[in-house]
């Protein structure tokens, strides 16, 4: 009974201890909100989308498991891009989109390309996409979780586009489905070219 009375006296003290619940407070807490912010930065970058979506389509038109083979060089490029972002500028959107256009054209032509040049293309795409997304922020300027999110978000874009293309090609193995993806690739190249022109005009001050 005596112990219970002591506990009763301590109870108000315990009631004073809890702090505000932070389960949904994105400003505080874990690294998770930073990762989400990074993913959002990658997904909101039109030049990143127009570079990486064609890469995914090209990979699936190239080989069934193409994106899995191209993912290591792409990931390496994305990480390298974080360190090289210090040297980035808005003008890097032009070479980044050019890589996207090349990927789209390779998908349109659809030949059994050798692995090495495609791996190089994926690595270059990764570097350029992150140099554009990070807008000149050097390594260490942002929170670590944001870098993780940017890499995850950028890697997810070609994975998703490749998965959609691969799923469609496997579900409907008809000739016209393959043609449809090549036509989609050509449209993405046309969109990238037009977007690049607008960016180029803005850069040169037109």
């Amino acid at each position, binding site marked *: 009974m005596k112990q219970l009375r002591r506990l009763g006296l301590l109870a108000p003290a315990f009631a004073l201890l809890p702090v505000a619940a932070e389960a949904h407070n994105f400003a505080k807490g874990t690294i998770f909100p930073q990762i989400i912010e990074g993913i959002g930065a990658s997904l909101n970058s039109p030049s990143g989308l*127009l570079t990486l979506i064609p890469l995914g389509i090209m990979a699936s038109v190239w080989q069934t498991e193409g994106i899995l083979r191209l993912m290591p060089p792409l990931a390496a490029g994305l990480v390298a891009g974080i360190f090289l972002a210090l040297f980035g500028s808005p003008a890097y959107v032009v070479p980044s989109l050019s890589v996207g256009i090349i990927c789209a054209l390779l998908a349109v032509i659809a030949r059994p390309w050798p692995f090495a040049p495609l791996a190089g293309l994926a690595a270059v795409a990764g570097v350029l996409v992150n140099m554009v997304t990070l807008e000149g922020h050097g390594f260490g300027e942002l929170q670590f979780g944001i870098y993780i999110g940017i890499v995850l978000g950028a890697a997810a874009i070609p994975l998703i586009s490749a998965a959609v293309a691969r799923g469609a090609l496997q579900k409907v193995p008809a000739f016209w489905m393959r043609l449809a993806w090549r036509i989609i690739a*050509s449209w993405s190249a046309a969109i990238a070219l037009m977007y690049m022109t607008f960016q180029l005009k803005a850069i040169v001050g037109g």
Partner: protein
Amino acid sequence: MSPNKSFRFLIFSVLMLAATQSQAHIGQGAVGGFWSGFFHPLFGLDHIVAMVGVGLWGAFLGAPAIWLLPVTFPLVMSLGGMLGIMGLPIPGGEHTIEFGIALSGIVLGAAVLFGIRAPNWIAAIIVGLFAICHGYAHGAEMPGAANAFSFALGFVIATGLLHMCGIALGFLTLLPKGRYVVSGLGGVICAIGGAFMFGYL
């Protein structure tokens, strides 16, 4: 003033207060976004007939032209658009472009009308040359896109869908009398191109 007239005057006055500025042609909202890009190729008869003509001719020629031409056109048109947006001069200027656009209707329409079976590479070059003219014209008159990504997305999708319409119409050749319908459509495209060429449209 009778009570009836007074009531009408009151209603009129209230409506006058409720009226806002007229905004029929200022282009708010659509300019620079997806729908602006989407409707851009759809608002010119000269562009519509050419793009449908490309699809029709592609369907008429069969594989691989059926997909080669619609792939070539948007890509090369974007190149032409690039020249137009950047304002790069071309020989002959606006007259060359207008002539090329009108000629595209005539040539593509005639190709469908007479069932001309050109080799694929020649068909691709012809379509590519016309695509540059159409792209340049589009690029030169494009708004300073507020959202370049959405605009480009809408523009290319609309262009591609016009080709698809042409291809879908081209499949009429599979029907017993469909060939005549497709040839007739080619004649209409040719006539519209001629009307543009001689200033009737």
